[in-house]
């Protein structure tokens, strides 16, 4: 053990240029891959590098990106959330039902709040019963999905209302409102993580929980808050999606939690906690979206899309594991 420490120290003292280049690639690799992919797609298709197509990509990814931003906090805090997709589903149908039966604006406001409550429930289960977050959210995701089906009785809830559709479909100038919501949310999360005492505590909980406790950090409250935020984000994403397709479905967002986790890890946030950044997760979402967009533009068999995505994740994770080892 002392051996690895001393080699690491000497490596830091006299870093050869080649080594430094590799470190740079590992740190900013995700951005380089995105740039390469964009360059490639630009050459292959005239319709790729247009403001319209680019905005479209961001607009379509906005719900996933919102979830990924908040999920980053959970993962930096050393946790895992498998229930984001189910929370997304509950928030979708709750918002749709309220919009149809009570008031459209209430539906929009209720979605994120429902998500917040479910996220807090996750946090309370994890800290109260001392269950690993992976198991707790695996179980709660099934319960939440069941609640979503109960709310609708298994049916779909159509919501064709102007007062409801603006969130998912509206624009300010040429920018989609969903994109604006995403940007505001992402900036808020960045501020929270990097500029507040709460963010510091999130890093500390994920980096060394024992040390955090002995430093007077109430680690359970910090964890509950990160899960609450992710629930809020999943709810917000759910409302945007319902508003966009004008339909509340209990099965909405199935598998979305995995996309969000993939994006966070693809971006380079450490799955072991204590290390990561919001911008990385956004880059991860963007990369996933670009792959999808590329396959659409090039009209390739969509079967290859999952295959390619999977391979890219393996390579990205292997690269960051290499960084850890050295």
């Amino acid at each position, binding site marked *: 053990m002392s051996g690895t420490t001393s080699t690491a120290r000497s490596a830091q003292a006299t870093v050869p240029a080649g080594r430094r280049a590799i470190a740079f690639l590992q740190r900013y690799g995700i951005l380089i891959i995105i740039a390469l992919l964009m360059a490639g797609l630009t050459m292959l298709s005239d319709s790729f590098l247009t403001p319209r197509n680019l905005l479209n990509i961001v607009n379509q990814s906005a719900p996933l990106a919102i979830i990924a931003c908040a999920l980053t906090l959970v993962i930096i805090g050393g946790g895992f959330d498998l229930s984001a997709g189910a929370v997304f589903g509950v928030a979708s149908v709750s918002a749709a039902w309220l919009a149809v039966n009570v008031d459209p604006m209430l539906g929009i406001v209720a979605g994120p709040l429902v998500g917040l409550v479910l996220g807090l429930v996750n946090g309370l289960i994890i800290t109260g019963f001392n269950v690993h977050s992976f198991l707790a959210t695996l179980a709660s995701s099934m319960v939440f999905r069941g609640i979503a089906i109960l709310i609708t009785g298994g049916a779909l809830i159509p919501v064709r209302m102007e007062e409801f559709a603006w969130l998912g479909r509206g624009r300010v100038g040429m920018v989609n409102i969903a994109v604006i919501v995403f940007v505001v949310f992402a900036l808020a999360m960045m501020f929270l993580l990097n500029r507040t005492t709460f963010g510091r505590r999130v890093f500390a909980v994920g980096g060394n929980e024992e040390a955090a406790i002995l*430093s007077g950090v109430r680690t359970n409250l910090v964890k509950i808050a990160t899960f609450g935020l992710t629930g809020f984000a999943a709810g917000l994403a759910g409302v945007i999606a319902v508003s966009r397709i004008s339909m509340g479905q209990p099965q909405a967002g199935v598998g979305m939690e995995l996309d969000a986790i993939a994006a966070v890890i693809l971006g380079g946030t450490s799955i072991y906690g204590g290390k990561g950044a919001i911008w990385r997760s956004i880059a991860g979402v963007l990369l996933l979206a670009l792959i999808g967009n590329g396959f659409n533009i090039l009209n390739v068999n969509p079967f290859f899309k999952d295959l390619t995505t999977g391979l890219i994740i393996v390579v990205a994770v292997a690269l960051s594991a290499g960084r850890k080892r050295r």
Partner: protein
Amino acid sequence: MPEDAVRLSGIEKSFGSARILNGISLAFATGEVHALIGENGAGKSSLGKVVGGYYSFDAGTLTVFGRDVGHWSPRAALTSGIAMIHQELQLVPELTVAENVFLGIEENRAGVLTGSEQARFRALDERCGFGLSPNAVVADLRIAERQKVEIMRAIARDARVIIMDEPTSSLTADEADKLHRVIRWLRDEGRTVIYVTHFLDHVLETADRVTVMRDGRVVRTGPIAAETKASLIEAMLGEPADVAFPPLPPAPAADAPVLLEVAGLSSATGLSEVSLQVRAGEIVGLVGLVGSGRSELARAIFGADPSTGTVRVGGAAYDERSPRLSVQRGLAFVPEDRRKQGLDLVQTVRPNMSLPHLSLVSRLGVLKPRDERRRTAQMIEHFNIVPGQIDGEVAFYSGGNQQKVLLSKWVYGNPKVVILDEPSRGVDIGARRRIHNFVVELARGGAAVLLISSELEEVISLSHRGYLMRDGRIIGEADCRTLTVEDALFRLFNVEKQMGAA
């Protein structure tokens, strides 16, 4: 004496800059019980681990049954016939006794178990005579019985040398007696037992020969018949270490306020009715051996473990204890394991230092990075931390500089009561001196300091007053300015001071 089972010559071992074994030359004979004794940190456990293959060695040769070993690992040791039984037993609690005994050496045919375990176990048990049930689940056994499982496991692998590291530390007197009978039986079978312990009574009762260690060196090896408890203690002590301690500030006046007062503290971690007082400007040492409950006491006061009894901080009752409330009340606790409990090695220096006192560098929960950088820079300068970057990667720092970062983390908030658990463990001589000065600075600034160190010399030289601890209790109080290490050891081992100990 029959031939040597294990022979060491010129064995050296260092961790970083700390040399823990220094030119060890020693032989363990076949069919003897050989005890290794010494003060905390003398190197006895490390030596056991080198022989058992758990530590590599930097220089020297290790000869096992007449052959020099090259690549050395627990596995290689086991194939050479050496098994080690650890302080923390290494059994799989969910498996049965028989499954644990034969773990890794199950009889199989092409990977399929033959189910002969019961018969094999019975044969083995006949030889050992422990009378353990093969189907009992290890998790349900008492510690003494688990040790028997470990011993059977060693015998099942035909170990001819068995190293036991503090095997009696968690046994009752009765269980220890039984273990000693087993140890003698092992010897009579012609096996070698290397017995690492700090219980001198057990050594005198059971060992054939004893090796006394001090500061990573062998003081002497000899037959047990030539030793007494007093002679062993004297050998463990040796000359005072060649370290100057800074002068202490004058002891506080009798009317100086009592900043920390503990009364009747008991806990599930083994504390029983502990009471003590520390005044402003006073350094109070907890003098005791490893396992005497010193760290547990520190954790209980700080609220890291639940406890019953009363604590008063600065005169005010402090009954609902938690680390958070302790920080708010001006307590600081530097834990013994800086890598596991103290620092967040994933983060840099700056967030590590500010973590307990984020309110000092923020307003309404929003950080003030300039204030934070300024304070961090001050601490780096104050403690002369190298490298001096505000956002240096603390994971790559030396032990001494990591320890300074950990201390800075608590000085940040100007604590009233400071509990230091092994503040100078594993640091180089320069950092050690700086840390000693820091302890004195704290007291001079009016803080109450509770100091824990396994090095008796250090804790006695740096304290005004000391409490002697054993088995989770305080067994006495002493004025550290007149206490000698020798007196302390005699009192801790609970023997009358005899002969020319003066």
